């Protein structure tokens, strides 16, 4: 007795799909195809000479030890940003979930950072941690810590991790809070009656029921760390000191726009795309199995 809605003719369904397909074509497939094509070309900065070199750009990029370090650095950075953005968000969401009176102002305050542009967040944290004028570095200096992200690579790395994660905490908070509120109170109350401690209640009830949210956020945060942290890095460290905060997306921009080497830059963006696709597939195949919907 199933009734199917069938459009008469072929034209209407295609016409209805057309705008979306057009948008994907223009904003995804065409640029991606161009990147792929450009990654096989060797050009001078002004495009006066264009030579087809096959896979040479990939070979140059991948055989460069500095680029392999950049890949490793990007992985570390992405994991660190994801962890630093998700753990505080869960904690904040658990707290906010328990607030009964005046819940709205709390939530609003916690969500606001998400509305701040990455470059602004970078500039803000750079200012706080500036070795000569920063408030935080002043107090760190008084505590006897010699804080200087301008010359110490690991200081610079933590600066951009904190700045990138801070912004994303607000986003994660919204999702965790929504996830928490959809957990039936009866389950938690039943566990309470059975005498389960708050910690046990979290690990055996809340955490498993939050797992779809957590999984979704891991994927989103990873992609965020890979692509959208450019603004933070550009404002805070410009990839330095040395190369200690240069992640893959920053190098794509640098080689393309500053060094004006489009072939090498395009090859890197193809590699970056491949890595992110691979990571997402892995996450869906292996992590999702452990997720309870």
């Amino acid at each position, binding site marked *: 007795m199933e009734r199917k809605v069938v459009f008469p003719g072929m034209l209407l369904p295609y016409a209805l799909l057309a705008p979306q397909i057009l948008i994907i074509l223009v904003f995804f497939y065409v640029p991606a195809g161009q990147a792929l094509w450009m990654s096989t070309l060797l050009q001078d900065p*002004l495009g*006066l000479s264009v*030579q087809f070199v096959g896979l040479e750009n990939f070979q140059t990029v991948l055989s460069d030890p500095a680029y392999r370090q950049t890949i490793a650095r990007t992985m570390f950075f992405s994991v660190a940003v994801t962890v630093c953005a998700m753990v505080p968000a869960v904690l904040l969401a658990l707290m906010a979930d328990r607030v009964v009176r005046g819940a709205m102002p709390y939530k609003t305050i916690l969500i606001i950072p998400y509305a701040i542009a990455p470059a602004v967040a970078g500039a803000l944290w750079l200012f706080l941690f500036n070795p000569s004028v920063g408030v935080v570095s002043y107090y760190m200096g008084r505590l006897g810590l010699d804080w200087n992200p301008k010359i110490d690579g690991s200081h610079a790395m933590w600066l951009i991790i904190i700045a990138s994660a801070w912004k994303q905490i607000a986003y994660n908070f919204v999702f965790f809070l929504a996830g928490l509120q959809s957990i039936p109170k009866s389950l938690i109350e039943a566990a309470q009656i059975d005498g389960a401690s708050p910690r046990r209640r979290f690990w055996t009830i809340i955490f498993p029921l939050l797992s779809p949210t957590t999984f979704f956020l891991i994927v989103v945060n990873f992609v965020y760390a890979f692509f959208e942290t450019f603004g933070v890095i550009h404002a805070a460290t410009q990839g330095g*000191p040395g190369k200690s905060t240069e992640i893959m997306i920053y190098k794509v921009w640098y080689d393309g726009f500053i060094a004006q080497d489009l072939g090498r830059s395009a090859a890197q963006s193809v590699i970056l795309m491949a890595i992110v696709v691979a990571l997402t597939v892995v996450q869906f195949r292996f992590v999702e199995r452990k997720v309870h919907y």
Partner: protein
Amino acid sequence: MFLTKRALIGAAAAGIMAASTAAYAQQRTNIEVWIGLTGPAQEEMIKYGQEFNASQTKYNVNVTFRGQYPEQRAAAFAAFRAGNPPHVMQMFDAGTGDMFGLPRATVPVSEVFQRAGLQFDPAQFLGPARGYYSRPDGTLNSMPYNVSTAVLFYNKDIFRKAGLDPNKAPATWPEMIDAAKKIRATNAAECGFSTTWLAWIMLEQFSALHDLPMSTEGNGRGGLNAVLNFNDAPRAKMVQTLIDMSRDKSFQYGGRSNDANALFVAGTCGMLLQSSGGHAGIARDLKAEFGVGFLPHWPDLTTSPKNGIVGGASLWVFNAPNRSAEEFRGVAEFLAFMSRTEMLVRFAKATGFLPATNAAFAAMQAEGFFTQNAGRDVPILQLTRGTPTPNSSGYRFGRWTEIRDMYHEEVEKALQGQQTAQVALDNAVRRGNEALRQFERTATAAQ
């Protein structure tokens, strides 16, 4: 019927008037000028464009800011690829080698003036600026505009506290080191000295002052096959000095580009090596008396340091298939307007950049500008001292923007203690040469 007819005539008359206004506006040939400067210098250049438009009726110059130098360059190159570059583009010093390596993209300014039948003498520009932007045959490829060089700024209050003579700037590196150590020993300031624009000052200016080549082939003038060789003992010693001095903070690294300026104006460092273009900012922000001195040199390497090299930017004229002779003529008229003595004097006074021509410098001297503004003449005297050699007349390296950053990265690693000064320079030279070979390959194919 009558009414409609009258209305029609009225409409037609209005149309004719509108058309003739449009025709009048169209008579003016449009000239696009893209600049990459911010702050007062940007405002001045935009104003000069408007003044040029008011001064004649044939051309309409549109001076626009297209992002800072690197962004502006990326935008102009993309426009060139699309077949419609700006007529004139402001290119920063480090991009000069790319333009020289790809001569088909531009028309030398000497030729632009010649085609327009306008008088033009490259010798009017300050020697090192002319050397930096001209071909071996004397043809000026681009017009020097905002010119700067690096000098030493020192905080006189900190000098007094440290028991140093506030009226005498350290002239050599041993004196500089001595002053920095005294500042630290007496705790007159948290740090002895810092430097902005690391590669420009510690490599490029350093090499020019001490008459040392940065590569084979006359710093790239002899051809695209130049091989970098600045990883020798004197330049490694300079970097090693910075590493050694950073242990007791007689030197403190302040970051790339202009970042270290903050350390000086906050009073954290007693001395700063900085672009002369930073003079106005320091005068505004530093709450202390300061002096200006020449860049220090090593007396064991030379007793008569050469001229420093220029920084800043020059104006390039793009070539494109759709450019008419009339447009080139307009460009020539505009460039002639911009290089008038009174215009350059105005620009130098308003921005702190140096006057690009000898005549403009003389005019500023004559009106007593330098006696009223002590220290403002130091950069010009440094630029014009002695006879320039091939090593002190700039360089022609493609992808130099990127190679500068390679130097920054490697020296930063050395300052972090991850490698020695010699290894840092060896790495910078090796990576730089890879970039030069890549550029040689593409530029040769483009010729």
